[in-house]
């Protein structure tokens, strides 16, 4: 399953750090952040619950970029 979320982040380097952090979250098969459109595309693993996975994604992203936002 794939879902797209709006994100808020200030710099391109931070966006790529968020992408790495999201990829390492359990339940996420793949993630792609487009800094230009400020969109985060997440591909979930089979059977994963998107909203609970996204909470962890946000937590992990905050670790690398403390003032980022993900709209989910």
């Amino acid at each position, binding site marked *: 399953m794939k879902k797209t979320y709006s994100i808020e982040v*200030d*710099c*391109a*380097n*931070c966006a*790529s*750090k968020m992408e790495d952090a999201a990829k390492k979250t359990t339940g996420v098969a793949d993630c*792609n952040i*487009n*800094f*230009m*459109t*400020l*969109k985060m*595309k997440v591909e979930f693993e089979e059977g994963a619950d998107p909203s609970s996975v996204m909470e962890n994604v946000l937590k992990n992203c905050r*670790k*690398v*970029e*403390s*003032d980022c936002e993900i709209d989910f």
Partner: protein
Amino acid sequence: MNKKQKKMLTKILVSTALMILLHFMPITGILRFILYMIPYLIIGYDVLIKAGKGIINRQPFDECFLMAIATLGAIAVALSRSGDYTEAIAVMLFYQTGEWFQSYAVGKSRKNISGLMDIRPDYANIESNGHVERVDPDGVEIGSIIIVNPGEKIPIDGIVTDGNSTLNTSALTGESLPRDIVKGDDVISGCINMSGVLKIKTTKKFEESTASKILDLVENASSRKSKSENFITKFARIYTPAVVFSALFLAFIPPIIQILIGDVPMWGDWIYRALTFLVISCPCALVISIPLSFFAGIGGASKAGILVKGSNFIELLSKTDTIVFDKTGTLTQGVFSVNGIHHNPLEDHELLRYAAYAESASSHPISKSLQAAYGEALNLSRVSDIKEISGNGVTAIVDGKSIAVGNEKLMDSLGIQSIRCHLFGTIVHIAIDGEYSGHILISDIVKPTAKEAIRLLKNHGVRKTVMLTGDSATVASEVASDLGIDEFKAELLPGDKVDEIENILSSVTNPSNNKVAFVGDGVNDAPVLSRADIGIAMGALGSDAAIEAADVVLMDDNPKQIASAIRISRKCMRIVHENIVFAIGVKFACLILSAFGLANMWLAVFADVGVMIIAVINAIRALFTKKFTE
């Protein structure tokens, strides 16, 4: 400006004012330190907090951490020696101003680019119980009737059931000539209705409609990364740690050596140099400007009616060395029409009638053009016993007469002597009851812009042009020499085209720099499109299969767009290379200068944010593609 930007601007102005004020106040000692900390904290507290969070989360190498160390270090140096706190504040100010400007510039360009692709329809008008209602296009079912008023965008693909109008398709195709629309025509979403009210029966869902698909494609284009982007990502990953460790080295090793050789260690100097190193270590200028250049390039191309599906294809397109064309529908209009009827004992119209009836079961373009030339509705009960002889033609019984319609081979196999035509095109011979009754010449017309397109491509560095066609060698050689195409391969079956592409690909001498593009109409050449380095589908407006299979989609069917696409990609790549060289060059120059103590913190901040801003402004140039489309 958003809220965050406004807040930052206020902080910048307040702390600048305070700093200037303090400069004229004759205070010394600890009070001076405390007073100077006020503007420093106003401008830098969020950086310090973020740096702290970074350490807690074990992500120390971010720019906030670096700025915090650099400015705190400068304060420490000031406290112990000079008492000049302005440098720490000024560096923080400069950094925040740069960040602010960058965020503003990126936001602005983001707006510009999405403004270019402003084809997203916001609403649909639906008629229910006699009055018109505005609804979200997302919820409109297939088969609903929508109403599009003059000046509105068509929200969903469909067929016009009522009304006529002219459509402005320029947002989709880059073509400024309006298109006339009457009842029964297919229309696609994203076009703007210009004159009359249209009632449209939708044939697709909103998310399957052309406008949504194009937007999706362009927005996702940057997920296919180019080599330059991958290079930068890798570079950034090693660059920051490398510079941070060099800074550590610079702070400790030279003073220790100086102690060992009995010299003065000059700790302050070396630490200051190390701190400037840290400021230069942020790779942001590179990390932002390269994808931004590609994004702007893709945005500019889509404005010209050229959809590029990924940054990697911009890169490949700029290296196009050989272009292989499919003939029909690409260089020619792909519309076959009857251009002559020769050697017939019967009336022209009667001969066409027999031919049209005999071919009535086929959907081949040839039979369609026969039916179009006949011009009357067919009564299928008049035809029976239709037999298709693959590659040769058909035989059938029409009005009790046995009719054979096909090529020379068919006539030969029936033992009928046929007469060759002296003109180029597809020749359809007809025999009635075993008697030769003449032939019909069907030919395709070369697109008026094709010749100019080939010339433009040659002018812009395409070395070789090749044409592939299933047509006969005589037709192919005629078209090729007329257009100035270097090579042609005729009488190919669809499978042969893939083999030909393989041959061309393997004959390229320098495959990493010379790319082979294939241009087709995308309808039946999907395997060839995907086999070539770059598959270009043209005239693909509304054809999902083509948009799916190709790497580059030309919305219009004008072959001159191929040259535009290549020129746009070249400009974009030139900007990308400029940015890479400029950003890395300035950073390295500043690193070397500061290692020798020739650069101060100001220059370091310029190397960080100044370079970034210049690179961003340069990247935006990729958006302007107008001169390539004329």
